[in-house]
């Protein structure tokens, strides 16, 4: 067979084909053989690589799927947490509002009590101030009267000291000293 092929090859011009579409027989054979060899080689050597690559890809896809599932699970758990937190926020809001109401009520009560105390103290102070002012006014008036009296008395006394009174005062002194005081 090999010899036939060789003879064929040698007998004919390799650049001229017998059919416009089909190649020469030898080419078909060689091509077929080469194709088979390549196919076998591909199957033998490329198959495992492809198989391995596919397996790796499958594994990668599986990993991605697992990751996505995990992410989904995480997201769902976070969503649950957020929903829970939302619930907590609502409860906290309610609690804070209630606490604010309580504090406002306490402040109001405290403020009213303090204002009442301050009003009482102010009233007491006003009463005391009035009493003090009244006393001060009385004292000042008394001092004024005393001062005027002190100023006026010598003049009044001097005017009333007649000669007779002067003599009486002198006689009274002599009598008093003579009597041993």
């Amino acid at each position, binding site marked *: 067979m090999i010899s036939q092929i060789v003879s064929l090859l040698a007998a004919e011009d390799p650049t001229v084909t017998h059919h416009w579409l089909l190649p020469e027989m030898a080419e078909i054979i060689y091509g077929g053989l080469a194709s088979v060899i390549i196919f076998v080689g591909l199957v033998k050597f490329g198959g495992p690589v492809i198989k391995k690559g596919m397996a790796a890809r499958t594994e990668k896809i599986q990993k991605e799927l697992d990751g996505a599932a995990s992410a989904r699970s995480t997201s769902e758990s976070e969503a649950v947490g957020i929903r829970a937190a939302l619930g907590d926020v609502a409860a906290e809001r309610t609690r804070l509002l209630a606490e604010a109401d309580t504090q406002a009520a306490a402040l109001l009560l405290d403020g009213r009590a303090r204002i009442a105390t301050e009003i009482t103290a102010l009233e007491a102070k006003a009463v005391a101030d009035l009493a003090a002012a009244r006393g001060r006014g009385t004292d000042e008036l008394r001092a004024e009267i*005393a001062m005027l*009296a*002190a100023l006026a*008395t*010598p003049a009044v*006394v*001097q005017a009333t*000291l007649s*000669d007779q*009174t*002067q003599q009486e*005062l*002198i*006689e*009274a*002194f*002599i*009598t*008093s*000293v*003579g009597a*041993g*005081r």
Partner: protein
Amino acid sequence: MSNARIEAYARALFEIAQAEGDIDAVENELFRMARAFESNEQLRSTLTDATIPADRRQGVVEQLLGGKASNTTTQLVALVVGSGRSKDLPAIIDTLIKRASSEKKLEVAEVRSAIALTDDQQKRLSAALTKATGKQVNLKVVIDPTVMGGLVATVGDEVIDDTVRTRLEQLKSRI
């Protein structure tokens, strides 16, 4: 002026007055002169003014006392004024009076009154003060309008005050 110098002047004046006789009259005139000097600002400033010559100040004394006081009194005051001791005239005279009283074994009783006392009142007052203090007194009356009424007597350290002025002051402090 120191007390020793005042004493010295008082002793000298006393001896001159005693030598001249009528020490009682001179003593009384000097006492009145001292009180006038104390109470009269113009007289005091004139007699103590060092810018006025001594003979002119002595002339003022002679003009003031001439005919109203004895010659001895006038000369004694002029002597003090002429020696430039006018400022100490009251102290010298008071010391002289104390000395004179001491010679007579008397205690000076200075009595201040708003009006003059009659002789009878002075006698009775002397007797009363002698009785009250247990000392024979040499009464010296000062006319002092500031007492207003009544009398205040000072015998040594003892003061008997029954003046209207003091009563008014007590009243004022009570008010």
